[in-house]
């Protein structure tokens, strides 16, 4: 029998409202007991958590693992190690691999390779075959193979007739369409936010309207079909307003924001006026936006318009970023800095610690209705739930040092930044997968 006693920590479980100093006993991969001063069963591993917050393991609705096809950027195993270090015990893998996760067989193979890695991997299927935006995939087969959502992320489902049929079909399957909200006809190959900084740098801009256009379209299509529209990585104030309005009308619209859109503006692309950077590590899609957009994202997260913080972890090899800005790949490696960013917002007084943890645990689980079957209790510390826990420091100052990350992707504009908060240890499915506690 495998037992772990996490003792002396401050347990925060937003799903149950627990917010006090308690111990957590894990037996055979499930939460066995949460209570004060629990006795350690014989042979149990003891994990001291004094001074730390003990929370359910984080759930990421938006992770790019590069396997199959681009294992030099990330493998399922390296991505899962990065997840564990970031406090994530469940990650949803986007289908833009090579080949794309567009058939049950490819999803099966991916899940087999994900069996023994350091976190749970839930696949997201492609909406269209090869993500080409032309023909629908076999959506029910993907769901039955384990897809928890479908998405052509990286691109929007640009063809409105295809998007319409996808929503209609998905209405019967009870999984969301996770949309990358970028109208290519408006974005026109823009490489950063269309604003004062792009005008200065002479870089093609992607206007906020490119995001809003798809958000509004998908709200209309999902409403007409009676399906769920999940808005990925929302980055602009008008889109958040449209989502808030749709939710107020009772539509099944859910949304996520990324840590980088909560923390960074388009300014970081430029660097400083004295020395322009054209920082390719800040090239990401959707692009980093204005300060008022950042503030709107934080407010929407704190106010519950947004269900989840999702990393959009997008690891790349160094060579993909050591080049001209136009030629650089889009994406930020985000699993291992997510907690530091979110907790820094807590420290700044922008949202409560409990809400921050909610948006990383039960928030995403409810958004995608993930607590079913073997995953009943996912995102909580209720008895019988999967033993996924993370131990968090909320006051340790940590410098972002991608060179020491488990992810193969060292690409982050936060390199060298100081954040407040770090992930001290992580238990995934009853196994200690990360222990970085100070000895």
């Amino acid at each position, binding site marked *: 029998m495998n037992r772990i006693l996490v003792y002396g920590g401050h347990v925060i479980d937003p799903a149950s409202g627990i917010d006090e100093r308690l111990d957590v006993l894990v037996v055979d991969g499930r939460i066995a007991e949460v209570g004060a001063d629990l006795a350690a069963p014989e042979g149990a591993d003891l994990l001291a958590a004094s001074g730390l917050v003990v929370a359910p393991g984080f759930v990421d609705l938006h992770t790019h693992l590069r396997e199959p096809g681009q294992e030099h950027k990330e493998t399922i195993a390296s991505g899962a190690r990065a997840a564990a270090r970031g406090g994530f015990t469940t990650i949803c893998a986007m289908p833009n691999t090579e080949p794309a996760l567009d058939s049950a067989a490819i999803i099966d193979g991916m899940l087999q390779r994900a069996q023994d890695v350091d976190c749970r991997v839930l696949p997201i299927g492609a909406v269209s075959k090869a993500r080409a935006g032309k023909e629908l995939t076999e959506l029910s087969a993907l769901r039955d193979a384990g897809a928890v959502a479908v998405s052509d992320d990286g691109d929007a489902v640009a063809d409105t007739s295809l998007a319409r049929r996808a929503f209609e079909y998905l209405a019967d399957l009870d999984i969301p369409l996770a949309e990358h909200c970028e109208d290519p006809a408006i974005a026109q190959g823009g490489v950063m936010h269309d604003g004062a900084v792009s005008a200065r740098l*002479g870089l093609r801009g992607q206007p906020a309207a490119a995001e809003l256009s798809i958000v509004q379209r998908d709200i209309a299509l999902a409403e007409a079909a009676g399906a769920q529209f999940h808005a990925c990585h929302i980055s602009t104030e008008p889109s958040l307003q449209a989502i808030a309005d749709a939710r107020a009308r009772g539509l099944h619209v859910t949304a996520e924001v990324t840590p980088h859109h909560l923390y960074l503006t388009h300014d970081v692309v430029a660097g400083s006026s004295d020395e322009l950077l054209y920082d390719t590590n800040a090239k990401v899609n959707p692009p980093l936006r204005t300060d008022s957009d950042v503030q709107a994202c934080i407010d929407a997260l704190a106010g519950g318009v947004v269900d989840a913080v999702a990393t959009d972890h997008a690891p790349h090899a160094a060579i993909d970023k*050591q080049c*001209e*800005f*136009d030629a650089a790949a889009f994406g930020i490696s985000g699993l291992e800095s997510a907690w530091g960013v979110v907790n820094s917002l807590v420290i700044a007084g922008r949202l409560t610690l409990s809400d921050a943890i909610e948006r990383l645990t039960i928030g995403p689980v409810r958004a995608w209705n993930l607590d079913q079957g073997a995953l009943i209790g996912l995102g909580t510390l209720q008895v019988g739930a999967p033993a996924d826990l993370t131990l968090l420091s909320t006051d340790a100052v940590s410098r972002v040092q991608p060179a020491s990350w488990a992810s193969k992707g060292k690409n982050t504009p936060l390199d060298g930044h100081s954040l407040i908060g770090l992930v001290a240890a992580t238990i995934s499915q009853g196994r200690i997968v990360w222990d970085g506690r100070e000895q």
Partner: protein
Amino acid sequence: MVSEPIAEPLVAPTSRVPFDEPITDWRHRHLLDVDNLSKEEILRILSTASAMAEVLDRSVARTPALRGVTIFNLFYEASTRTRSSFELAGKILGADVINVSGSGSSVEKGESLVETLNTLSAVGADAVVMRHHASGAPWLAARTIQGHIINAGDGQHAHPTQALLDAYILLEEFGDLTGRKVVIVGDILHSRVARSNIWSLTTLGAKVTLVAPRPLIPASMAPGAGEPEHPLALPSVQVAADLDEAIVGADAVMALRIQNERLQGKLLPSSAEFARRYQLTAERVAMASPHAIVMHPGPMNEGVEIAVDVAHGPQSRIEAQVSAGLAVRMAILFLLIRGGA
């Protein structure tokens, strides 16, 4: 060739520029843009250019100021006037100038910019003059290799030597630009010439007005865009949609090249529609100040952004711009390489 020295406050005589002595007070290692040059530094470049113009007037236009120096012209985009101007500038100053273009080099075989630069550095490039289709590429170059980087145009971003030669022409004409009204008309959005000119002209005290239809103005600069002041933004200038209004009283009017593919119905309705509102015609130039001059960075689409008679009329300084470009580029090479920064 430029025959007349620049009016005050610039100084001209060759004796002021000892070509054979190192310069100790030039702080810039590269010329990436004009955004970080002070007014004094711009004037220093232009007075040096004026001295270079004197060299060009000699019966044998040669000086050994950069003897022993190796300069690479690394051009990823087609260019006639800029590339030949830099090549000639280097050769007149006694440097070895080697041309590398995007086609016919290892660039065509897929070599990355970083690798190409490292290669040039390894064979001993003291300076690399580069033109590249990607905005910001010279900044990457300046972080990659030791040699001096001179930006000969990057994407839609900056074209500092063009802005400097334009300033040379304007100062030659007006002596001082304080309060002078300069209208820049055409495809502002895609123009590196406009961006660099906005910096240098505002630094020199000119009042700049940009004129273009909305699709050719950066959205954040359009009238009514409502963007708050931003510390990284371009300097604040007037932006107008109506050339007939904006040109009134202008001291100088600069037309920008508009590429044909932008006039084929998606961005703008047609070349005729653009010309109807924005072509620099004799009638419009007549509404500017009587002493106004007309400029164009070339190459021109005569009959589109500028009427043929205006391009070649008495107020045109377009040929003088090309000549001034040589002296300005000589000055830049000299100051950067002998400046020792």
